[in-house]
Structures are given as C-alpha cells and as structure tokens.
C-alpha cells in the first residue's frame, strides 16, 4: 500500500501577536512546525502501512528550510519525503498544482492523506483540490479509517451525522484530529530519521509552468482582543465569588 501524506509547515498560531502600532500580526521570528492535523494524517498513514505493508511518503510545498520540520514526520515513522521549495506568491490553486506535479513524479499510490485543514488558515481546500486534479474520490473529515486490500471505509464526521463511505483505490482522505493521537518520536527515532531520504524537486521539475495565484492578499489586519482581565486570585473563594457577582451585577447580567 503506497500512501502519500500532504503536509504543511506553519507558524505556531498561539505565538502570533498583533503589533499595536501597525495593527498587523507579527510573523517573523516565530517557530515553525508541522500543522497539527497533518500529524494525525501521518499517524494514520503509518498505522495503515504497518498493517498492510508498503510505504509512507510525505509531500510538502513550502520554504526550502522546511526539511527540518519534515524530519519530524520521518522520525514519527514515514519512510521518505519530497519537498518542493516555493517561496514566491501562492494560493491554494498554485500549491495544489505543485502538489499533484510532485505526486505524479512519485508514481503509483493507493491513498493520499491530508489533515482536514491547516491550523493557521483553516480553509481545508488542498485535499478536495488535489482529489479533483487527480480525478479520484474524496472522503473528507474522516474520524476513522479501515483499509482493506480492495477498498477503504471511512467514517465522516459531519457534525450532525456520521456518514460511512467506502471507496476503491486510489482515494484521497482528509482526517480530523479525533482519528488518533500522533506518536511522539523517541530519541532513537529522531536519530534514525537522519538517514531517511528527503528528495527536493524544484517547481520547474514538477510542472511545466507555475500558475499565477488566483487569490491575492491585499491586507491583513489584527483583530483586537482587548479584555478587562480582572482576575480574582489569592483570596478566599467566597470573597472572589462575591467580587465576581458584584462585577457581573454592574455589567447588568445578574
């Protein structure tokens, strides 16, 4: 079973702060990481491979230094990775075209796995776009997957219902965070991953021409989250409670 996982490198959203003067989010100097739900996709890929045999290949479009974060996924247990460095303007259209260019270079595959969305922008476009460009079925929001030799069954969590879908291969599946608990690689795993191959293909090697973005960012502005931050601490519970009730009374909610 050949499984490809699409992964994205993002900044840690919790660390983003808004510059008070410019009212812009400050993204420089933040740590990079693999988007959380992509790790669930990798974990699921490893699980299926361990059961059915085959290999897990990570594919990423991102900055050239992303090899460092990709190593984390190899340490988890993925077998190899393909990085397509791209630091010019992009949108989901550009990235999905680069991804399928890379996927076609990788040869035969049975399952392509993605996280349901990345935690920074949370659009969830890449999975369905890649599935359409490859003309294969998509099983989105899977919270459980059962892979057979001939077919795969996924339980899709639609909020108000669970829809169970079956598909033959190849198929694209996006997973939710509930599907599993991604493993933390041990030190041995991390050392072992150093020898796993990370292939780098330039954009020109995977597509004849890189499209221009169909969506252009004009502006990004911070949203202020100014709260009163009146915290009652280091006092008896009774006192804290009466102060809170008094405050809520003044707010007119009691």
């Amino acid at each position, binding site marked *: 079973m050949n499984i490809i996982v699409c992964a994205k490198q993002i900044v840690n959203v919790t660390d983003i702060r808004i510059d008070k003067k410019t009212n812009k989010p400050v993204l420089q100097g933040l740590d990079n990481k693999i988007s959380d739900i992509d790790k669930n996709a990798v974990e699921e890929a490893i699980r299926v491979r361990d059961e059915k045999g085959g290999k897990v290949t990570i594919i990423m479009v991102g900055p050239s230094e992303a090899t460092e974060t990709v190593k984390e996924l190899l340490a988890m247990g993925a077998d190899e990775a393909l990085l397509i460095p791209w630091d010019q303007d992009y949108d989901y259209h550009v990235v999905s075209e680069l991804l399928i260019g890379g996927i076609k270079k990788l040869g035969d595959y049975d399952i392509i796995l993605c996280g349901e969305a990345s935690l920074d922008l949370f659009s969830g476009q890449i999975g369905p776009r890649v599935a359409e460009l490859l003309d294969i079925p998509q099983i989105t929001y899977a919270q459980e997957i059962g892979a057979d030799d001939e077919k795969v069954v996924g339980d899709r969590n639609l909020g108000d219902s669970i829809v169970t879908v079956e598909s033959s291969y190849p198929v694209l599946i996006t997973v939710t965070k*509930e599907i599993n608990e991604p493993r933390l690689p041990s030190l041995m795993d991390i050392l072992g991953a150093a020898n796993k191959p990370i292939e780098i293909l330039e954009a020109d090697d995977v597509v004849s021409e890189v499209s221009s973005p169909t969506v252009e*960012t004009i502006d990004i502005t911070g949203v202020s989250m100014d709260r009163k931050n009146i915290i009652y601490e280091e006092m008896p519970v009774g006192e804290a409670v009466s102060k809170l009730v008094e405050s809520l009374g003044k707010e007119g909610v009691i």
Partner: protein
Amino acid sequence: MVLAYAGKKQLMLEMLGKGRELANELEKELTAVIVGDENHALAEEYIQYGADKVFLIRTNQEMFKAEEYTQILTGLIEESESELVLIGSNKDGKELAPRLAAKLKAGCVSECTDIHIDDGDIITERTIFSGKAVAKEKINSKQGIITVPSKTFDPLDADTGRNGDIIEKEIMVDPSRSKIIDVKEMEHSGVNVEDAEVIVSCGRGFDNREDIELAENLAAQFKGRAIGCSRPISADLNWLPEEHWVGLSGHKVKPRVYFAVGISGQIQHIAGMRDSDIIVAINKDPDALIFDNADYGIVGDLYKVLPELIDAIENAKT
C-alpha cells in the same frame, strides 16, 4: 451572473440576501440552484428572497457527494457564465467549493465574513490565525468561488410580488467510485449554542461526566442559556454531543456572557467564543491562557467556586 448554492434553506436565504446586493453592483442576475429535489415551492421562495432565476436540477444521484456535485455545478457555472459563485459553508459546501474551484482553475476563498465589489473586482474578508487577524483578499480568476458561513448575512424580507424564472434541468453525472454505506444521525438535544444569550462552557477541568451538572446549575440561573464545551469534552471524551462544542471546528458563538469553566483556553477554543460580550473564566491554573482572554476571572478549583457562585447569584437576584 451570480450563482448561489447551499443544501440548507436558511443558509441559502442568507446568501441570497448578500447575493442580491452583489448582483446589483455587478449589474448581473442572481441565480439559485436546487439539486435533486423538484421543489417548486422552494424555488418560488428563493425568488421572493431575491433570486432572479432558479435552476431546479434533476440528477441520477440521491445523496450529496462532492465529486458529483462538482460536475453539476461546473456545467451550470459555465453555461450561465457565472463570475461569482456563493457556496454555503456547511461541511458539504466546504468540501465542494475547493473541488469545484480546482475543476474551474478558479480562486476560492473559504468562510468569508464579508464580500464586496470594488471597481469590478471581487474583494473578500475572512478571519485567519484562529481569529487573531482578518485577511482581505482579491480574486483574480475568471470565476470566483466563495463559501459563506451561516449567520454571516441577513436574508431580505420576502417579496411575494417578485417574479423570476424557474428552469428545470436534468444533469446526469458520472457516478463517483465512492459509495455511501451508512448514515447515522447524531444525538440531538435541541441545544443551539449559536443563539444562546448565556453560555456555561465546560473543559478538561471537569473530572467526570456527571459533574457537568454543576455547569447546568450555574446556567439555570440565566435565561436563554446553553451548555457549551471545549473540544476534548465533545470530540475525545464524548461527554457532550457535538452541538455543544465551541471552537474553530465546532460552533462559533457570541453570547452576552460566556463562562469558561475548567477550560485552558487553547487558541482554537478562543476562536469560537471571542465575539462574546463578556467572558468569565474559572480555572485553577493562574497561568491558563483563558485568563488573557477573559474580562473577569477566578483562579480556583471549579468544584469549590461553582457551588458558591450559584448560591451568590441566587442571593443577588432576590
């Protein structure tokens, strides 16, 4: 042409409200799409709420599949030369829109909070970075596809005198290789956190499922109340059904008062409740992120704080 499709009626009415305004600015027609249901009464209603035209599509497939709906909508968009396509941003719409966009090589913006036309260009706004910022974007492709979350725009008042065309069509699709083998409806208690005035929300600070009763007792002090929860309580522990889940991939709420009880305040949770008027946090960890996002807070054990708080509110009311 501006084309609108959502599988749910209320969301469709909201989209028609905004769609009408955009169609007027573009000096184009607004068309609504109904798939798989020869519901003329619904088509009439869409016209009363702003549509100029309704495509009533008969097809060979019964249930929604993004692969198949992509084929239906691609045909309609190309035939009607639509330049702006609004798709309802429920789970179906969110997986349909990007697939459709890939087929059309079009730009797609997910979960827009505002849309306007500037000098003929389609400009969108959406929140990113878990609600910390708003991105203003411009669509540069021939067609623009935009998904619209529920409760973002208001429907127009129904105009029973409005005329429009209802066009019936039969569109056969190549069936997807995937097969729906089971649909299980999830437990419903009729709770609607999105409309609640006061929400008491539970997090991992609760030790047992039964203890949620404490939160319910606090909520019982208020009118228009609902119980909310963070991701682990619903998705991991299954203590409460999904309809209570507040967060980035759960429900987005804006009550008058939001009590976050035993919730650490991960950014994905904040994204779901940041529009609340007043946020009250109760947590035993003084460093919990939730306090940064709270108007009022008590650092303390919820098992001690909640019973006293319930008593105190009861006394204050009398």
